[in-house]
């Protein structure tokens, strides 16, 4: 469980630091993975299949998310010619 926490936090740090969008995507993956781990540990702890079912969903969601994320990044890359997330700040308030 502490391991899941550590992984999650590492993912979070990378998410904050990186300006490259792909790295952000990666850190999201890490965080998802950590969350999944926490679920599995819990399910094993209470011997309930629910944890694993939840992990199933996380997996499916992660897959869908990655696919759409990459497509978006592709588009953005074509627009901005770079992967820097600061470039995409035209939504300024």
């Amino acid at each position: 469980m502490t391991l899941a926490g550590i992984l999650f936090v590492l993912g979070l740090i990378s998410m904050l630091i990186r300006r490259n969008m792909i790295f952000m995507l990666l850190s999201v993956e890490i965080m998802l993975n950590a969350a999944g781990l926490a679920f599995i540990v819990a399910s094993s702890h209470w011997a309930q299949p629910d944890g694993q079912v939840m992990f199933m969903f996380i997996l499916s969601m992660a897959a869908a998310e990655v696919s759409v994320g990459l497509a978006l990044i592709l588009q953005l890359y074509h627009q901005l010619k770079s992967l820097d997330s600061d470039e995409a700040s035209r939504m300024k308030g």
Partner: protein
Amino acid sequence: MGVFFYITAAIAVFSTAMVVTRFNIMHALLYLIVSLLSVAVIFYLYGAPYMASLEIIVYAGAIMVLIIFFVMMLNLGPESTRLEKQWLKPGMWMVPALFCVILLGELVYLIAQNHTPVTGIKEVPPKAVGRSLFGPYILAVELSAMLLMAGIVGAYHLGRQQPKTLHRFLQSKPS
């Protein structure tokens, strides 16, 4: 049993740390795969063999490969690593790292509160998972199917190189 756990945990942490610090994307991806594998092993240790296999197949196999292909498609080349170096000033680290450490501290503190003996690992056979998957969670499964289908359509649609402009204000033509 504990020994295995600690080894794989160490590997996982190390590889995630490497993912976070690498400048070159490919290195980071590979480390990520390593970390996923170690997590899979931990799943197995925690009596979720089905999940472990799934993790390896879906997560490490499909998603990671997809990202690698994507990166190769973009063929960023060396200048992206230089760019990466330029962006990752040590100064940048301080503030977010500080907050994350606080967050970690709190998580650990919470987990340590009601710490129960780690030994109670019970085996949850895939059969039980399957039965519950199609039992109470039947609706959730359908939904995840829908989600996947949406993902595919979205990826397809966004990825297409439409000649015409996408939005009013995105004037420049995609290459």
